[in-house]
């Protein structure tokens, strides 16, 4: 393991700017947003908690042109790959789901693969929690263990550095003068910090009585006909915020530009909570009622993904809880499914 001072880390980022478009979390009021890195400004926050926006936005873009005028080339392309700094463990799990969908699911998606292939992920430990954090229930620790190139653990002003990939290793070797061997005391400081955050997430889980994913097996099948769905969907306004903010949601709409002399096809994020999501042209709709669509959302995350990919498509990031204007709470729905059916 390595160690880097914050001033050297600023130099490191400066160098990365040559090969990457670097994004880093910046604190605004009580939220964190990825912003393009210019210099090591005071509002940059490497630790603390996940950013407001899900990590998928960088690779599976909210709106992009995917075909133009029958031409076989790809319409848009960024100049350099992304380097995303300060990614939290929950979002790394989200990326795992996106990777499964777009890279390994029988067919490959050239747009996602292109955005993803040369990127650099510099993740970071959570050093605090918000009250909607429940990652541990989904077997995600509040610090990254895999799927990163380099991980940072904030200790005081500086960082303990862990390498997670060959790409990360090469970079640290390339800029070896900026890094030093980590002292034992910083590792124990890191471990103490990690334990403290785990304890806080555990308190969240205990307070809200959130079941662990070990008890999720067959909850959808078991609760399929229960009245939980209608009950929970009662206040839903069909805004789709839970879908767009979710790091694992991947559904999209192919949408053609309304111009008859120019064929341009866009894809935009879509929401399975919207009424016409599964409706066919003749009008038939397998999920005409809102509660059916809420059930479907949970079925996708807690039944489909574990069956096809052996993973629950939830990261415990809690974004959907904060985003929902109707206060539909995924923790409560899971609790009811596990304990009340």
């Amino acid at each position: 393991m390595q160690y880097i001072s914050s001033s050297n880390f600023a130099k490191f980022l400066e160098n990365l700017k040559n090969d990457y478009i670097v994004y880093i979390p910046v604190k605004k009021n009580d939220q964190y947003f990825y912003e393009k890195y210019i210099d090591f400004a005071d509002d940059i926050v490497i630790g603390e908690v996940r950013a407001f926006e899900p990590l998928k936005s960088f690779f599976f873009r909210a709106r992009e042109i995917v075909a133009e005028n029958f031409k076989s080339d790809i319409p848009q392309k960024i100049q350099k790959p992304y380097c995303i700094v300060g990614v939290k463990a929950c979002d790394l799990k989200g990326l795992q789901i996106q990777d499964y969908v777009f890279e390994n699911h029988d067919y490959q998606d050239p747009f996602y693969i292109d955005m993803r292939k040369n990127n650099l992920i510099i993740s970071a430990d959570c050093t605090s929690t918000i009250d909607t954090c429940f990652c541990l229930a989904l077997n995600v620790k509040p610090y990254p263990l895999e799927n990163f190139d380099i991980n940072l653990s904030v200790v005081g002003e500086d960082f303990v550095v862990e390498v997670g990939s060959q790409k990360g290793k090469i970079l640290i070797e390339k800029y070896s003068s900026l890094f030093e061997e980590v002292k034992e005391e910083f590792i124990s400081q890191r471990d103490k910090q990690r334990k403290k955050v785990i304890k806080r997430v555990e308190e969240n889980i205990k307070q809200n009585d959130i079941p662990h994913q070990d008890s999720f097996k067959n909850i959808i099948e078991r609760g399929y006909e229960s009245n939980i769905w209608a009950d929970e969907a009662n206040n839903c306004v069909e805004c789709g915020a839970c879908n767009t903010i979710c790091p694992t949601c991947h559904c999209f709409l192919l949408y053609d530009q309304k111009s008859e002399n120019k064929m341009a096809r866009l894809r935009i994020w879509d929401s399975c909570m919207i009424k016409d999501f599964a409706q066919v042209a003749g009008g038939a709709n397998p999920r005409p009622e809102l509660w059916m669509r809420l059930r479907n959302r949970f079925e996708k995350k807690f039944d489909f993904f574990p069956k096809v990919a052996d993973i629950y498509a939830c990261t415990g990031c809690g974004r959907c809880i904060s985003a929902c204007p109707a206060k539909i709470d995924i923790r409560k729905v899971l609790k009811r499914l596990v304990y009340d059916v």
Partner: protein
Amino acid sequence: MMYKIKNPYRPIRAEITEVISETPTIKTIRIVPEEPITFETGQFIELTIPGIGEAPFTPSSRPTMKDIMEITIMNVGKVTEKVHELKNGDIVGVRGPFGKGYPMDRFKGKEILVVGGGCGFAPIRSLMYELFDRSGEFKKLFFRGGCKTPQELLYRSEMDDWAKRKDLDIKLTVDKGDSEWKENVGVVTTILDGVEMDYESGIAIVCGPPIMMKFSTKKLIEMGFKEENIYLSMEKNMSCGIGKCGHCRIGTYYVCKDGPVFTYDKIKKFSNIWD
């Protein structure tokens, strides 16, 4: 910049060379794609109307015709409404083929009953030509087709030709006849009885509106067909065609890549498959 992976969202340009009015609400378009598109019968394509959008259709033409494709389309939505305005020389786009069609190899040496309803005649037409081309491979071939009225019966003149074939036993029905209709009157399940084949080992293929597929499947099971021998062509909101956009999922399947043809045993446990 070119990608190593083909862009799956890009339609191939195709020209309309013929538009045939089949019924007041159904037209067949014949298209010539710039690059030849080969498909297996039962697979589907996405048809783009530039500036409007795209929609999924199973071609109604013989799969062995490499350079042209025929698609039979009912006017029901925003894309199909525009399709009905198309004329010779107009440009459309085609993506695909997608999904899994009928597993012809599994039909070898079997007795086959094909049941079609209404607009479901379109994919069935493609399948029937494939079956005719391989005629010697199967023991017996039955076709039972139904639609609402004689005016809505698709491919009328082809049906007359089919009726003359020695390798096919064909029977048609309409829900409501007229003075010229000489054949059966009633829903399609009423002409399934008396099909002279061994139901236990036979293959049944059903394509039509959801309600027709639902009751035909029920009837076929009552007759003794095995669930794993009943082939259904599912109609869901297929969009991307490659199992990513999420719109056509039923249970653990995406209809676009795992279907659209499924045997009944694979999908019966999922809710709302007929809606």
